[in-house]
């Protein structure tokens, strides 16, 4: 999908977002004001007259947003907005207090839903910093035994871990066996099937035929995707708006996309790197020290800030593939050193330390190298996988680029 189409879609979304409240207010009077409020935030238009219903819609909005962000169920947000708006129209009266009603004409549902999504993320991060909660997180993280405990990760993280471990080219042994066994578990396909069904109504067939970048990348890199599935992976990537498959429907996440681009490169899709590089220089470019957390494909909008460890891991792999330069290290140096100072007790710090080691391979920064080398990375499976990859690249910086291409016969458009 070209830029013009995406721009046109964005313009339509903005116009509809502005026009719908306006039409409602102008066309339906007081009732329209209440309905417009619900367009701004589901439940807001019912708070005066039906507070319980308003609360119900607000909760549904939060749930729908979580479903959208986690599993790509974008229609659920639209459904809640429409439902709450209709409910506001049906349940509100048209008495005189309309005179004092105000409408925030500049608002529309998309940014507000993003705010809700951001708030949820923020609350989670704040919760993670509360001393007791932080201690519990750290305790749980410390109880993991590296790659041997890959099965304790969520399916998404398990796939990421498997993909990174495959790039690290683990020596045969218990760890490698665990990683491979983990990627063969039906839970990965089950999740893909459920997400496809709920988000896009996909029934039957290959659950990996569209999207699921993390899972397909892991399976390709581990040699667990057959030729037909690999062909579909390449086809999907070429057709995808960002040049790489999405993680969940509509969501292109930087680490998953980078792993997918490497996998596509391995499959012989020589243009995959070029397409992803364009994204890394365009909508996913470094802004004020951060890379976006996602790129939403329906309208081509990137937003948020990728977690530091994801950013560093993505940048480390992309840099080793020659897709980006050293600018990410400049941006991430302080956070990586801070994580190294805090130590590897908390999962995200451990991942950031390992990803930092990966990112700084070949970078002449002896002070940082000494600091980042100190913490012992041994608990979180993804961190251990990143650490192994960093170790491999520190011996052979060109290892990823020079890896043999699989399935050279996969047709590329």
């Amino acid at each position, binding site marked *: 999908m070209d830029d013009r189409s995406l721009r046109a879609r964005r313009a339509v979304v903005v116009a509809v977002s502005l026009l719908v409240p306006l039409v409602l207010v102008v066309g339906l009077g007081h009732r329209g004001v209440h309905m417009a409020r619900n367009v701004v935030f589901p439940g807001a238009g019912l708070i005066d007259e039906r507070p319980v219903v308003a609360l119900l819609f607000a909760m549904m909005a939060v749930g729908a947003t979580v479903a959208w962000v986690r599993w790509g169920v974008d229609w659920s947000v639209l459904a809640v907005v429409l439902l709450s708006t209709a409910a506001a129209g049906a349940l509100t009266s048209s008495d005189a207090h309309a005179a004092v009603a105000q409408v925030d004409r500049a608002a529309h549902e998309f940014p507000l839903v993003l705010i809700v999504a951001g708030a949820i993320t923020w609350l989670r991060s704040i919760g993670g910093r509360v001393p007791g909660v932080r201690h519990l997180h750290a305790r749980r993280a410390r109880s993991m035994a590296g790659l041997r405990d890959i099965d304790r990760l969520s399916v998404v993280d398990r796939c990421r871990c498997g993909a990174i471990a495959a790039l690290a080219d683990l020596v045969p042994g218990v760890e490698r066996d665990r990683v491979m066994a983990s990627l063969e578990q039906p839970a990965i396909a089950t999740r893909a099937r459920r997400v496809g069904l709920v988000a896009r109504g996909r029934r039957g067939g290959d659950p990996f035929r569209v999207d699921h970048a993390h899972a397909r990348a892991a399976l390709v890199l581990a040699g667990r995707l057959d030729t037909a599935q690999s062909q579909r992976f390449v086809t999907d990537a070429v057709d995808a708006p960002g040049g790489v498959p999405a993680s969940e429907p509509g969501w292109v996440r930087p680490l998953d996309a980078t792993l997918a681009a490497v996998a596509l490169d391995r499959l012989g899709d020589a243009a995959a790197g070029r397409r992803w590089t364009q994204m890394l220089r365009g909508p996913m470019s470094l802004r004020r020290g951060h890379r976006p957390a996602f790129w939403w494909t329906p309208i081509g909008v990137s937003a948020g800030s990728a977690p530091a460890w994801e950013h560093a891991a993505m940048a480390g792999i992309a840099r080793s593939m020659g897709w980006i330069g050293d600018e990410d290290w400049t941006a991430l*140096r*302080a*956070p*990586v*050193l*801070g994580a*190294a*100072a*805090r*130590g*590897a007790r908390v999962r995200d710090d451990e991942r950031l330390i390992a990803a930092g080691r990966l990112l700084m391979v070949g970078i002449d920064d*002896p*002070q940082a190298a*000494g*600091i980042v080398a*100190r*913490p*012992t990375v041994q608990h979180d499976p993804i961190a251990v996988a990143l650490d192994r990859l960093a170790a491999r690249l520190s011996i052979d910086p060109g290892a990823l680029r020079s890896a043999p291409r699989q399935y050279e016969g996969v047709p590329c458009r």
Partner: protein
Amino acid sequence: MTSTDLTPPAERDHSTPADPPVLLLPERPRRMGPITRALLLRFVAVVALVELAGIVLTIVGDTTWRAAGLSLVLPGGGFLFTAAPLLFVLTWAAITVALVLWWGMSGHWGIPLVWMLSAVASAALADGPRLFVDRGTTWEWAVPVVFVAAVALVAAVVRSFEVRFRRKRAMVPELNQYLASASVPPPSRPLREPDDMDAELLRWAYELTLQPIDEFRGFEWGEQFHGGTVVRYELNYLGWALAPYAVNYVPNAPAQVELALRNLVLKQTDLRVWRYWRTLNLVGNLDANPDPLVRDNIMFSGFTGDQINLYEAATGSTRFDEPGSLTFVWSDGRTFAYDHHSWMEAVQRNFEQSRLGFFPCEPGWAFAACNTIGAQALYGHDRLHGTHLWDDIEARWRQTLEDEYLMPDGKYANIRSTHTGLSWDTGETPGGEYFTTGTHHFADIAPDIARRGRALSLRGVPEKMAAVAATMVDGELPMQLPLEWERNRARTTAVPSWTKLIAGARMVGNEPLAAAAQRAHDRQCATGEVWPERPLAVGVANLALHMLVRWSTPIDNAELNARGYVAPVGPLVDAPWPAVLITLARSTDGVSLQCCLRPGATPSAEAVDVVFDQCHPGAGYHLSGDGIERLVVADEQGHASTSLVVDRPLSLRLAPSAVVDA
């Protein structure tokens, strides 16, 4: 390391002139030094101004102003006047908390804040409702009571100081007479052979120090400001204990102990160890800079500076001289890069910038002990690197010690406030003062003061030690010492008492008693447990201090600090840790090597490579002892190796074939 370096001092050739006479105490001691007086006068002036304001308000003001004035005369005094005794009690409870925080967290503003708040609050509540009495009630009797209490408080403080001063001053003639004629016995400094307990202690210390740098298994964690669970001190003490082990026991096996000592220094740069400083700096200096060396904090910079010197003096490693080798990283990624030199320059800069001459540990509190260790650190750096950091400040440092900290009876105040000049008993040392301090007791930085302090502190000790020695039966001490609480109140233990007894016996040259006390200590305090449990029934800090005393012979850290690094002569030995623990590796003749290898925690029948270095190139050596008898030939680089099964303690001798033949 030459053979004479390990010869006990008593057996050395004393060709130097006799020691000069012991320094006497000032016959007309001043109550306080000039800087302390200036600080105290400033403090008194401020308090006097507050009192004056309080008196004026009490005399000329209405009820509201009188309440405020009385609270200025005595914190919370206005509450008594306004019939609110509960608030008076609360004020003094708050004053007590503020006092603790002043000492514990450098909250210098705590007491003034409570004081001023009590004035404001008593004025604000002057016309307010009362508990149990009518609104607007005032207790006129409170006015004289408050004034009397304030005067009594000041009088009690002044009297306490004056009585103490006069009592100490009265002792001067007698003490000087003693000093002029005192014959202090020389200390005993035997060249010991490590025993089983030494091996267990060393093994535990290696397990603790040779774990990954970022891991702290086995350390005792608690509050990190200045309690008994401060990890930086545990690291200091362990470094101070292992340095004499390196020079006295394993000078010819530097590899294992060098890494252990290095790791102890590197662990000091772990954020968990030094992050306390930012809190102290913020509370005490109102400065959010987390850099632990740039301002104050001598209990870290001085202590660890000394530890780095001893590491270098014991091992010869100059790795911490490399720029940035000691880099602190704050949690936001900010870095504060130092090395051995810039570290010491920071310590010296703090000394130079201090008005008192000693600079604070916690903001506002300058300890004699910490400033002595800081001075040791500068001195040691000069000895190692030929710099003049200590020379530049020595005169002023001595002046501060002798003018500002010395008491009439030869003791030094433990602490002095750099804001108020006040000093008090913090409970850390008996009476809050001591005759000598620092870890070297002034022996390296001020030998004359050290001699005086030693003479004073040993007054009557030989007799006491003789009395204890009289209880020995067949060379053993058939006794147990009572258990006492450790400073962190985690457990009771007899180890510190034994450590003091061993040190005391050595100080007066009673080696039979010292050796018997050490054996008795081992009998009472050994746990028989292995890593990660402790081999002695004591906390980490006191265990390390015990090792420090145990291993500081014949060379102690004061001598090591003055001597600097001396490369070992004779063959060197190395074996892989943790399969093999080397507890002894010495060459007393410069050509042969005496070594003791012990198996790892789980003895194995698998052979390990034992490597010898610094042998005569191409020469043959006999390795013998404990059933081992074999010829080892050095290559052209003086390198040799052999495979040994170390499944039991092996006491071995490596000697050139010619020596063996002879």
